[in-house]
């Protein structure tokens, strides 16, 4: 296949994004959903860094990716706290059971 260019990275990030999304959409366990979310964020990071490399803007992309990682860390922490609370409340973390807000 041709030399690895920007498109390859974009396709890879799209693929990872899609897989993450699939995890979020289909997984029953909340923690797995969180993992899915992390994967999606990483896919985004790949894009950032790919562009920071191929459209050189003085490492803006990388800095942005850095901050994405930071926020993801904080987000994961809080999300997990929430999940644990849900677990305490409902004795299970399966999302399909957590439908008290049903209409």
């Amino acid at each position, binding site marked *: 296949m041709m030399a690895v260019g920007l498109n390859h990275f974009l396709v890879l990030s799209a693929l990872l994004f899609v897989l993450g999304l699939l995890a979020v959409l289909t997984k029953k366990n909340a923690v797995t959903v969180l993992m899915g979310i992390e994967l999606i964020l990483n896919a985004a990071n790949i894009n950032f860094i790919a562009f920071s490399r191929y459209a050189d803007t003085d490492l803006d992309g990388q800095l942005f990716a850095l901050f994405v990682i*930071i926020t993801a*860390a904080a987000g994961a922490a809080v999300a997990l706290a929430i999940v*644990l609370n849900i677990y305490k409340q409902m004795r299970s973390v399966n999302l399909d059971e957590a439908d008290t807000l049903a209409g």
Partner: protein
Amino acid sequence: MLLHFAAPFIFVIVAAAFIALNLLISRLLQPRVPSAGKNTTYECGEIPIGSSWVQFNIRFYVITLIFVIFDVEIVFLVPWAVVFKDLGWFAFVEVVIFVFILLVGLAYAWRKGDLEWDKPETGKFARDAAPQLFEEVGTERQQTVQEVTL
């Protein structure tokens, strides 16, 4: 610059191969006598009862949580440390503020007791149960010590 990173990657692969090789050798050489006793979970020879799940208290999670937050702090401080020499007084103040804010978090955790770990209360009961027994033992030992020292 890429090659620098190739090294650890290759080192990982080589180490994995090394272990795999050894495991293969040991698998070939080792006697294989499966028996029920062997295959049960090892509980100091006791018969394993109950599930291994133990309701972890949340402390492990909180510790990891604080670790993540400070880990991220380190990630921020590394580039600062690297360019500390070149930057002036201003960057130092910024970082002081940055670290101070996070220290507030640490203080909060510390104050709220998230960092404490349950002290195993050992010894308390025994002493209460039979205080005079302890006294006797205590006195006897001192006597023997005196004899010995003499």
